[in-house]
């Protein structure tokens, strides 16, 4: 197919944000009927590249070519109007508007006199949902949708118009296996109809499953464009990282100490029920289960963000006041939340400010924050976690996802916690940073920290956890020690098929 003119291409594109050069002389060609993967570590420039194609960013130099002709997109609407559909990594929806409005905003089918044909909008949305095989009512507001459902709305949005080019930035990060399969089937169908697809995923298996060609970026530079046929996952990782990847799950053996966190009969009506478990010092305990099983909700309730209706949480022997994150922090609990943009960070604040947030009372006297102390604390942690940044005064928003996650970790580790709860610690993070986060968690546990890790990444659960707790429909259904934890045993429990052998 590659003999024809590419539908959409970048030629020698450069883009800088202040001092950070996000893209340097990058070229890319997307052909009709071909699925093209974009590989690279976090911060390699993938998102910037997509935004250049989508009309969000204008390249500083270089060209965007549509059917071989140079074009200039003045905004996302221009790119959309020529048939470029983009699914961004983080869903951006209108919380107050209905799903249907979210999908068709600015493009609603119209009747005479330019009036919106609300009925047609609803019908088309219903058809899209049927096509994606999901049960979301078009009239429901986007507020309160789970991240997976939000992602589905984004996908429906991209499918809702005649896309010649479909660009997907980590569309599967929040999806379950069956939802991913559905998505891939739809993408395959689009591709067969002649659409060009650009696909980004940190799950290399998915790249190999879906795509024919791959372009790799490293540090904003083009590394290679090649057919996926002749290469292996290891080859791809080597191109991305620029070095051989050592162990992705560097689990250190640790000495398990006394109980640090003890949860008894914790219940939140309609969300989870009767959840009891212990986490001991030096241990990494994974909380696994399908999306919607109530894992994150348990973590939230333990930390006191959500109030539990019944049950108690003890940290180091003292019972926590329910519904009080402050009390939890004082007792030595730390929570790295799932949604780092909304809950983990203040995006408009600098890196040092964000890291300083959890220790404002320790960073000065009489309610005044000493800038020097704040900066000192931030730079200590930045070094320890190998944070990649321009200046500590930069907005957190300019960092890549993996580095943002490190800032969240730094922010909480700086409180010197006894128990660290991490919710999806490596969601949407590249392999290199993922390994760094794993190494960090492992060494923290070795130092005697108790770690509770909520994760839907099965290899991560199996690779990192000393014990696996599995939830199914709001209940803790199994506790599996490391030696017995396999994909089969965890999935069986998560889907509710487990024999009740080791029910907790």
């Amino acid at each position, binding site marked *: 197919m590659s003999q024809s003119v590419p539908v959409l291409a970048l030629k020698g594109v450069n883009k800088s944000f202040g001092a950070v050069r996000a893209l340097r002389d990058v070229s890319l060609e997307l052909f009709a009927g071909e699925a093209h993967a974009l590989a690279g570590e976090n911060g390699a420039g993938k998102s910037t590249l997509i935004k250049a194609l989508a009309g969000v960013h204008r390249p500083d130099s270089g060209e965007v070519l549509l059917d071989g002709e140079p074009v200039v997109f003045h905004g996302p609407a221009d790119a959309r109007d020529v048939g470029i559909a983009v699914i961004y990594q983080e869903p951006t929806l209108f919380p107050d508007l209905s799903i249907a409005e979210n999908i068709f905003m600015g493009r609603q089918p119209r009747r005479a006199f330019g009036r919106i044909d609300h009925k047609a909008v609803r019908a088309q949305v219903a058809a899209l949902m049927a096509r994606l095989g999901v049960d979301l009512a078009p009239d429901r*507001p986007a507020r309160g949708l789970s991240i997976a459902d939000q992602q589905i709305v984004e996908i429906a949005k991209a499918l809702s118009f005649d896309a010649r080019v479909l660009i997907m930035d980590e569309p599967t990060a929040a999806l379950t296996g069956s939802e991913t399969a559905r998505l891939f089937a739809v993408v395959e169908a689009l591709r067969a109809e002649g659409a060009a697809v650009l696909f980004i995923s940190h799950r290399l298996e998915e790249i190999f499953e879906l795509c024919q060609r791959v372009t790799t970026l490293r540090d904003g530079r083009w590394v290679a464009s090649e057919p996926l046929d002749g290469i292996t996952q290891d080859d791809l990782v080597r191109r991305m990282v620029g070095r051989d990847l050592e162990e992705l799950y560097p689990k250190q053996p640790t000495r398990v100490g006394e109980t640090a966190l003890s949860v008894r009969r914790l219940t939140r009506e309609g969300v989870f029920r009767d959840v009891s478990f212990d986490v001991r010092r030096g241990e990494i305990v994974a909380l696994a289960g399908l999306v919607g099983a109530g894992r994150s909700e348990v973590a939230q309730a333990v930390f006191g963000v959500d109030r539990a209706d019944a049950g108690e949480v003890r940290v180091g022997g003292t019972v926590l006041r329910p519904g009080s994150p402050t009390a939890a922090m004082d007792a030595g609990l730390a929570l790295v939340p799932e949604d780092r943009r909304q809950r983990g960070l203040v995006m408009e604040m600098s890196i040092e400010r964000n890291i300083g947030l959890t220790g404002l009372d320790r960073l000065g006297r009489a309610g005044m924050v000493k800038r020097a102390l704040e900066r000192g604390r931030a730079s200590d942690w930045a070094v320890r976690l190998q944070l990649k940044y321009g200046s500590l005064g930069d907005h957190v928003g300019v960092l890549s996802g993996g580095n943002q996650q490190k800032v969240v970790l730094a922010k909480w580790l700086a409180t010197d916690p006894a128990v660290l709860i991490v919710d999806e610690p490596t969601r949407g993070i590249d392999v290199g940073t993922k390994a760094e986060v794993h190494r960090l968690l492992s060494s923290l546990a070795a130092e005697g920290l108790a770690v509770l890790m909520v994760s839907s990444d099965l290899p991560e659960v199996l690779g990192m956890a000393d014990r696996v707790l599995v939830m199914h429909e709001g209940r803790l259904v199994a506790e599996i020690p490391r030696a017995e934890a396999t994909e089969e045993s965890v999935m069986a429990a998560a889907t509710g098929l487990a024999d009740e052998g080791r029910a907790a």
Partner: protein
Amino acid sequence: MTVTVEKPAPAAETERSARSLVDAVFRAREISIAGALVLLVLFTWVAEPRFLNDQGVKDLLLNAAILVLLAVGQSVVVITRNIDLSVGSVVGLSAFACGKFVSGTDHGVLTVLLLGVVVGAVCGLVSGSLVSFGKVPALVVTLGMLYIIQGLDYWWAQGEQINAADVPQSVLDLGSGSVLGLPYLPLISIAVLAGTAYVLRTYRSGRELYAIGSSPEAARLAGVPIRRRVLAAYLFSGAVSGFAGALWLARFGTVVADNAHGWELTVVSAVVVGGVAIVGGTGTVWGAALGALLLTTIGSALAVLKVDSFWADAIAGALLLAAISVDRIVNVRMTRALRKRSAR
């Protein structure tokens, strides 16, 4: 690409009830305001039967008409997560300009109204340009405009006053006349209200205003022309305020420099009490109009009951706080309820 329907979408029951929950909450807001309004009127009527005689009802409607207009204009701005604090000054300037224009000569009612609209639109254009293209926070811009326009008006008026005697009868007739027993002013307000509500609901541009207020970032990615829409919202709010200024002249005949002094806060209160969230994205102009009607009726009722007028302000303030608190609580509860539903 074609959308192939493999099977009809089975919208889950829980989803449907989630939607009706949201609808119910918003309808509940409008119904509870209407309910409060009815109670207030009944109570006052029992205490003072003259409150609801022909003249009383007429007065209620006339008093509400201008505030309703302003609330409609303000809603459109607030929906986009902005605010227009200059409306009081704009009404003052427009009323005075129209008064100057007509004193002694009869230019015809329509010309006067048009002049009011133009004066207001120019003010809205300035505010809107600064907010949308200058990216200056709306609060600062419109607060500045409030004082600038007020100053301009004082300087122009130099203590002068326009009296009803100077205003041609055709203009005054608009303010006091009626058709089928219904005064013109409230009818005009209702027409503007209905038209605005229709546009907000049925046109892309209207829905995009909600989109901008709900999530500016998402609106940008959806290709919504944010700056143009925000500018248009200010232009509309300005034009409506200018129009209201012309009506003010028609209604009262007497115009001084600081006519609608302090009204901006009443208007914002009416809008928020009426369920338009101050953070944008939700609410209807119908609700805002009900809020305006409630606030003016409280004022009238207290006057009839011979209660000091400052209580009206205090009550308006209390209502405002209550409305914002209710918004917040409803928001939190609804998010939680929707989460629970989608979790199952």
